[in-house]
């Protein structure tokens, strides 16, 4: 009996000790930042460990449900893929099969500023250095060539429009593969000139003009326009007028063309060209 009472007394002593220690640890955790964060860390580690174990165990019970969910989302993705494939084919046809050219990649851009009524027209795009755009990259729309990047900032780039009397690009007749140089004369925004096509080539009105691919800036076979008039009889070269496919008054979405092997090609050409 005596020992029992002593035991209870001891036990109460220990109980009180625990209560008071708990109290002071509570004080510690509420008043001192360092210890409270440490305590939180410890409890988070503990609960994190426990919940990881629990979720590992319960994962197996949910496998059927998860499978069904995955199948459902597979179906949705397949549908999306089919829809996108259709659109991709459509766009690829419009761009004249150039998207399959593996040496170029494309960056989608929006035209945020544009002009057509000057001699030196420029566009501004909402992509820049941060999107991988560099100087002298080509810009195309779904209808044809738009211009060449002239300057880039981190989020914007300016483009020399095809409607700029300074810009000359290499173009060819799709039917005969004869190439010449294409430039704007500064008069009609729907028409550009194609020169340097020799007189012996039989050019007829309505022939399609595409990019030649002789410069690294544009891939070959991007649509430009159709021949609208043939002049220059008596000289060595045709004087061709080309009606552009692209309506520069309505530009909104364009692609910036990044040549993937540009430096390799340029290096090679620079070392072998005799000037």
């Amino acid at each position, binding site marked *: 009996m005596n020992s029992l009472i002593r035991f209870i007394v001891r036990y109460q002593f220990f109980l009180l*000790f625990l209560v008071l*220690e708990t109290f*002071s*640890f509570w*004080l*510690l955790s*509420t008043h*001192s930042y360092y*210890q409270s964060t440490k*305590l939180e860390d410890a409890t988070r580690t503990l609960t994190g460990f426990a919940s990881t174990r629990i979720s590992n165990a319960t994962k197996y019970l949910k496998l059927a449900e998860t499978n069904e969910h995955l199948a459902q989302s597979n179906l949705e993705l397949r549908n999306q893929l089919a829809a996108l494939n259709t659109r991709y084919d459509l766009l690829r046809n419009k761009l004249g099969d150039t998207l399959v050219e593996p040496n170029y990649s494309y960056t989608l851009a929006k035209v945020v500023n544009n002009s057509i009524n000057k001699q030196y027209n420029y566009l501004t795009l909402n992509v820049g250095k941060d999107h991988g755009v560099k100087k002298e990259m080509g810009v195309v729309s779904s209808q044809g060539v738009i211009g060449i990047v002239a300057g880039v900032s981190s989020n914007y780039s300016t483009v020399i429009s095809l409607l700029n009397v300074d810009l000359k690009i290499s173009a060819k007749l799709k039917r005969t593969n004869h190439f010449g140089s294409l430039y704007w004369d500064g008069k009609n925004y729907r028409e550009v000139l194609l020169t340097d096509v020799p007189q012996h080539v039989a050019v007829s009105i309505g022939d399609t003009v595409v990019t030649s691919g002789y410069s690294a800036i544009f891939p070959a076979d991007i649509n430009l326009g159709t021949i609208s008039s043939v002049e220059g009889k008596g000289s060595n070269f045709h004087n061709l007028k080309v009606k552009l496919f692209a309506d520069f008054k309505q530009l909104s979405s364009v692609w910036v063309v990044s040549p993937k092997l540009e430096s390799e090609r340029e290096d090679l050409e620079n070392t072998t060209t005799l000037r």
Partner: protein
Amino acid sequence: MVKDIVKYSGLFVLLILLQIFILNNIQLSGYINPYLYVLFILLLPYEIAGWALLIVGLLTGLTIDTFMNTYGMHSSATIFLAFLRPYMLRMLADREDVDKKGNPSLSGNGFVWFLKYVSILVFAHHLMLFFIEAFSFSTFFSTLWRTLLSSVTTTIFIFIAMLLFDKKQ
């Protein structure tokens, strides 16, 4: 009884003031912090009830915490010290003097007994205190080293205090 309460209240105030205004401002190599105030718990009478011992421990620690802005740190260590004290006393007790009157003291119990009593309990208190302060075992040996050095210093301070003020008993 009343005399005892007055005596211990005086001792309490004295030790707290000594701790806060003098000892806390002494910087011994950065590693060593003597905490003389634990002497108050060590000098409480033998016959004090367990609950009273723990409450006094809490109040002492809390007072120090209030002045040092370390809420809970000294309290938990001092409560731990108060909790260990009865076991320590029973462990050190000779068979004859189980029902001793008065309180543990250097003059009453002898140098060796008092040294054992003080050093072990002070070490326990400091161990608790410094590990709560560090709150991690990653600096285990550094904390242990601090505990050891500070325990030795506190024990020395306690002996000096006892030699100076415990003549009459």
